[in-house]
């Protein structure tokens, strides 16, 4: 199953501008981006449409991880998914790794973030949800399609802006 993720250059700029802002105590920022599915010949497109920044007060001070968001942020995210379930809008946890080039989940990311997905699926079962990690000039995504218990790594993230950005998994080239 091939998965491609797309977003406009304007949305990408908005996300990057938010994620690079320093936080009063967290080492990195987290956000949520919402998107809908489109059909491909042999897979699915995820078309991202809007971004939600997480207010500073919704972070939990935990020096063991780059960023940890608290229950209020998670509750808000679950409510948003529920509110948008008619339009089959899914939610994607997004954060920035501050290096350039292809990026991947850290061991902490892999341990903690996928655990959020079943919660999102429980309130938005017909939508795709997932995780996106951007670097300074690249990005990777993992997508859980409806009813799926396994995430699929996106082969490509396209930024439809000026310039166009095509972030590809090395193995997909």
């Amino acid at each position: 199953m091939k998965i491609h993720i797309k977003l406009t250059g304007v949305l990408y700029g908005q996300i990057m501008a938010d994620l690079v802002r320093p936080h009063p105590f967290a080492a990195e920022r987290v956000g949520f981006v919402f998107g809908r599915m489109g059909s491909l010949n042999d897979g699915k497109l995820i078309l991202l449409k809007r971004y939600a920044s997480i207010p500073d007060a919704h972070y939990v001070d935990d020096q063991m991880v780059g960023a940890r968001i608290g229950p209020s942020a998670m509750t808000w995210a679950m409510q948003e998914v529920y509110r948008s379930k008619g339009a089959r809008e899914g939610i994607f946890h997004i954060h920035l790794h501050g290096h350039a080039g292809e990026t991947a989940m850290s061991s902490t990311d892999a341990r903690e973030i996928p655990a959020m997905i079943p919660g999102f699926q429980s309130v938005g079962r017909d939508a795709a949800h997932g995780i996106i990690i951007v670097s300074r000039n690249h990005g990777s995504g993992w997508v859980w399609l409806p009813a799926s218990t396994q995430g699929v790594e996106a082969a490509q993230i396209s930024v439809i802006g000026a310039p166009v950005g095509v972030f590809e998994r090395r193995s997909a080239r």
Partner: protein
Amino acid sequence: MSNDRYSRQSFLGPDAEARIAACTIGIAGLGGGGSHIVQQLSHIGFQRYVIYDGDEVEDSNLNRLVGATSADALAATPKLHLAKMMIYSLQPKARVAGFPCKWQEKPEPLRECQIVFGGVDSYQGRHELEVACRRYLMHYIDIGMDVHGTEKPVIGGQVILSSPGGPCMRCMGFLSDELLAREAALYGNAGPRPQVIWPNGVLASTAVGLAVDLVTNWTRQGRRHAYLVYDGNASTVKESATLRNLASGSCPHFPDGEVGDPVLLEL
């Protein structure tokens, strides 16, 4: 640049070759305009294509179809075949998904593209392509030409870049309900439109230039929309006054967020 082949276009930027190679281009219509576009993109280094045309070469195409020969007209060579030959002769490792039909009959592969060129004849065809490009997040570059009048013919044409989130062809004053209705009323009765190679060449070259700038941003303009008007009698291409005078970059016809497969909403 990794080798001498692209040394003359190194001004496009140090990573231009990789950016160009990674971009997937859609082309709907491989006739007078599309054949120029295919040729130029292949020379530049584009490697990934999704292309559509269900027609075969006819005698009446030979005045403008780049790459077509008299033998192709005799053999009724599919235009799709000509385009593939053009691409593979310049880019042997290219990935080409080609379909001998209208894009509407096989729309899913087109959605993988980052940039789509429209070389279609009708306003309705342009409208449908733009709708698809907005819904599945693709830059759309439209080209078209026409000849008006017979006693003192006037050649006109346009190149339009319509990008998600920015002004569309309706915002730019190029498409309207009235125009679409008038065209629909003439359905099947419009007759063949005059087409010649040199305006198609100007328009295709201008369109390819916009695409290369979109991919590499070599002009540093960050241009996401354009409406360029061709005057074939004066041999000029100028920015449309309509676009210049648009109040803002937002589009009321394609609200942000209307993306993806349509779903039925419960009332």
